[in-house]
């Protein structure tokens, strides 16, 4: 068995869901996503036992593209993140009714398929295909099932689509250039072996940067984010913020840094600074947001800024912290957007000003929401602290001021999150009734919280999984 099994399960699942009809589709989708999760865990087991679970077969001869899936620890970590979040995301949507549900759930599985492929692909063009493929389902999910004024929504979603597509085209160009140099091969190990001049690397680095900076997003390329997060259905927002933006961060580590190491070292300070600027900017903008989902979007912007800064330090700590934080952020942000959805189901609003006084009516929901808020501000004993601490530590080793400035997230994050929590949850009892969480909702929250707390105290399994692959990547970066 190799990792292609996961892809096959998800792809078959997408079609099976579509053909199972509107009534059954959500359950079928959940079943297949759980099967994919089970398969990933099985494969992880085999991988830890030393078995080879990668796959390389030739696919297209001219140009020479291989169907190459390389599952190292880093890729497996990201695949597991996707495989674990997808069923949670699907299950969390059980309280909602969707028109044409079969297409909706089919697209979710298709997106999971494309994202998993992106994490696994070790052939440049195959990777590019998966990368672009993932954009298609989210485009339709946001456009068709989104909320708010249809014209506004179309504008935001089309902007997102074209913007990210445009960025990716630079990456495609870079790949074509690289494969010319590597005698037509797109395989990652061939590309890693290239000896490019500093000038070539600069342009390659920049081309990748455009694709990733828009996808992640880093400031000032983030303008699509808040609007799309707000207008997409919550499931779409979760897919985007929980998994898809990690595609960009993961790709920085997998492709951008090792393919252009000289440039990465040369311009390290610039890109770390850019990431940190995003931390501060995102946090400050989040302070005065009236829309709950938009606030969370800007908080996401701040967090990914820190993750990117960690990656660009080119140190083992920085990379490790970045990956840990990617996973932790994936879970917490899905939980937070779900909390926003739970409130929307009852109050039918996302305006913070119309909320408040929920705590007296729903103690369970309050506790769970608060734990997520605390995880988001990286309270020690949550998984997010492990990641944030490691990243900040790596930054302090580059320059102590990076750690101080990046560390403002500790203060500003607490400020905007607690302020939000106060206005959303506390105060005099709201005049509208707020039913406490249902069993289904509770399960989704409980799973996320359990993951965040468990790895908060015991991150070792993940650290052990990702460290060898990160060391290998660092060897490639430092080969000269």
């Amino acid at each position: 068995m190799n990792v292609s099994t996961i892809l096959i399960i998800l792809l078959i699942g997408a079609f099976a869901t579509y053909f199972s009809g509107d009534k059954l589709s959500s359950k079928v989708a959940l079943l297949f996503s759980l099967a994919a999760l089970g398969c990933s865990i099985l494969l992880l087991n085999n991988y830890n036992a030393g078995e080879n679970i990668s796959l390389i077969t030739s696919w297209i001869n001219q140009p020479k593209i291989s169907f190459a899936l390389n599952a190292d620890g880093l890729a497996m970590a990201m695949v597991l993140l996707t495989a674990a979040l997808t069923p949670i995301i699907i299950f969390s949507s059980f309280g909602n009714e969707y028109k044409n549900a079969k297409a909706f759930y089919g697209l979710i599985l298709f997106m999971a398929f494309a994202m998993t492929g992106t994490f696994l692909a070790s052939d440049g063009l195959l990777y590019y295909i998966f990368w672009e493929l993932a954009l298609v389902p989210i485009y339709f999910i946001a456009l068709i099932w989104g909320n708010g004024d249809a014209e506004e929504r179309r504008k935001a979603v089309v902007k997102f689509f074209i913007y990210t597509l445009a960025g990716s085209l630079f990456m495609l160009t870079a790949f074509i250039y690289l494969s010319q140099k590597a005698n037509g091969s797109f395989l990652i190990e061939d590309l890693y072996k290239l000896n490019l001049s500093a000038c070539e690397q600069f342009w390659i680095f920049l081309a990748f940067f455009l694709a990733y900076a828009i996808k992640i997003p880093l400031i000032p390329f983030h303008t699509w984010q808040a609007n799309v997060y707000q207008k997409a259905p919550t499931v779409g927002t979760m897919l985007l913020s929980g998994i898809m933006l990690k595609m960009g961060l993961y790709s920085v580590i997998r492709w951008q840094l090792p393919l252009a190491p000289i440039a990465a070292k040369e311009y390290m300070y610039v890109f770390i600074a850019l990431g940190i600027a995003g931390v501060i900017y995102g946090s400050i903008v989040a302070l005065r947001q009236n829309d709950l989902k938009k606030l969370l979007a800007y908080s996401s912007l701040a967090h990914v800024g820190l993750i990117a800064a960690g990656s660009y330090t080119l140190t083992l700590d920085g990379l490790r912290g970045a990956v840990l934080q990617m996973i932790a952020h994936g879970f917490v942000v899905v939980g937070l957007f779900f909390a926003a959805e739970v409130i929307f189901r009852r109050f039918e609003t996302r305006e913070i000003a119309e909320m408040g006084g929920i705590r007296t009516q729903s103690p369970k929901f309050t506790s769970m929401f608060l734990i997520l808020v605390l995880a988001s501000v990286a309270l020690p004993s949550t998984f997010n602290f492990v990641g944030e601490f490691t990243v900040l530590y790596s930054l302090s080793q580059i320059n102590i001021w990076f750690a101080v400035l990046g560390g403002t997230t500790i203060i500003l994050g607490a400020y905007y999150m607690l302020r939000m929590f106060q206005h959303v949850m506390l105060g005099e009892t709201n005049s509208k009734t707020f039913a406490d969480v249902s069993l289904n909702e509770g399960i989704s929250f409980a799973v996320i919280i359990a993951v965040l707390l468990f790895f908060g105290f015991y991150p070792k399994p993940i650290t052990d999984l990702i460290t060898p692959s990160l060391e290998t990547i660092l060897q490639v970066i430092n080969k000269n």
Partner: protein
Amino acid sequence: MDTNLALILVLTPLLGFLVNVFFGKSLGKTVSGAIGTIAVAISFVVSLLLFNQITSTGKGIQVTLFDWIQISNLKINLGFLLDQLSVLWLLFVTGIGSLIHLYSISYMHDDENMHKFFAYLNLFIFFMITLVIGSNLLVLFIGWEGVGLCSYLLIGFWHKNQNYNDAAKKAFIMNRIGDLGLLIGMFIIGSMFSTLDYATLQTAVAGASDLNSPLLSLAALCLFIGACGKSAQIPLYTWLPDAMAGPTPVSALIHAATMVTAGIFMVTRLNFVFDAAHDVQNVIAIIGGITSLVAATIGLVQTDIKKVLAYSTVSQLGLMFLALGFGAYEVAVFHVITHAFFKACLFLGSGSVIHGLHGEQDMRKMGGLRKAMPITFWTMLISSLAISGVPFFSGFFSKDEILMTAFHHNISLYVVGSIASIMTAFYMFRLMFLTFFKEFRGTEEQKHHLHESGSLITIPLIILAILATFGGLISLPGNSWLNEYLAPLFSKAAGEEHHLGTTEYTLMGVAVLGGILGILIAYIKYFKQDNVPESDENITGLSKVLYNKYYVDEAYDAVFVQPINSLSKFFRDYIETGLSALVFGLGKVTNEIAFQGKKLQSGSIGLYLFVFVLGMCAIISYIFLAQ
């Protein structure tokens, strides 16, 4: 065995928390309160056992559970260190903690969310224990932020009131400013010595060649910023008075006796780092001195009984930092302990008063409670005598040692500390006279219901008053059990104790006279002359400045909070819109180019021919010119 004991110590309060969170409501108020209290009492018993073991063997116990966070040059595990310092702290945290839990059973009985109150209190004890017994700085940090969280939850316990929620949020955020300092300090220490573990660090620092290096000083300064946040020192003190929004047992436990001493604990724990950074020690002494004076002046005019005690706490913590700054760690620890006794007693006493008056906290509406509440009165009187430094009460010994240390190091800081102490005596007896003497100034309704609190409230008061009286015995001048007990922690020679000479007796006499002077002024003003503080609008002049706490909150608001909010609005309304328009603009430009290009495809043969001929000419002339 040791591992099990340590785990029982830590996990019992956590278990109490979980039981109360999940089943507290259905168990009923009394049971839920009892579970919370027993959980802490068990930890107290374990602490006693550990104390016994440590005193007999003289050696600390190191427990390592498992690897936690892995960083290239650091290996951070989840482990505990039970030595003289941590066990001492455990004793009074769990001891006073048990008493305050007991007290709360009665005090919170009318609250519908009593089980939550006990859950949070238990969680607090869990984190406080973690803070104290962690074997490295990062485990301390779990507890450090954890107690901050509990403080947040308990200040905002009555969450319908948004003012209380504001206070809770303020406490958390101000603490986090300090926490960033602590983190940065950890980063520097980690990169300098490749460890965050206390034991290894001590060896590493001792072996380091360049002590007093700027980098180590920077680390010490950053750690001290952390201490300023948690222990409410200038400039991060303003959250503590606001924290009085929480129920009074919380003020007693968290915001007087235990959590706020975490900064002093951390500095004492890392005494070898601070000893190697003399310039930072000076900063600590100065900040401590100034804080003690500033807070005392504000305390002079406050009319809310809890606010007086809150500023008194800030002031006393300042005195402790004064001692820390001079490297007199054992003296600071001594005052931490005696202060925990009498301040917990004072807060619980004020709680008893507030309870008796159905929530009234304004001293202007109290008076004459002595007869109705004799136990509350006597216990608070004893504690007031103790805090004022009246001879042979516990506070006399500990405060005296601080002032004596200051005298030997720096005369001006000695004067500052002494003035703060005189003011302390004054405002404490102002509080006593206004609350317990003369006629009752409240409503008839309240007067009718005046009564002494129940035994669950008075028993803790009595025990604490006894401790406040005799607590000084642990460190008598010249013959200090405490100094001997703590000696293994400190690198300096044990012989540095003060010998009692003429200077010392003179200083003692001055301090006692100062205390009596303060009490006397209060007596004249509030008993003889029968003054009652003016109502808010009539307060003028210097009093008004003091009453409004030097307008520091307003200044912080104007300098930090408002600008950041304006910046946020500016970013949101202008930069975000601008950037967005820019991206759309790019799209529009592309569209426009396409639109203009389209015009060329008009279908007119004449135009095509013209362009064709023009092109031919251009190519031909290029070829000719190039040759």
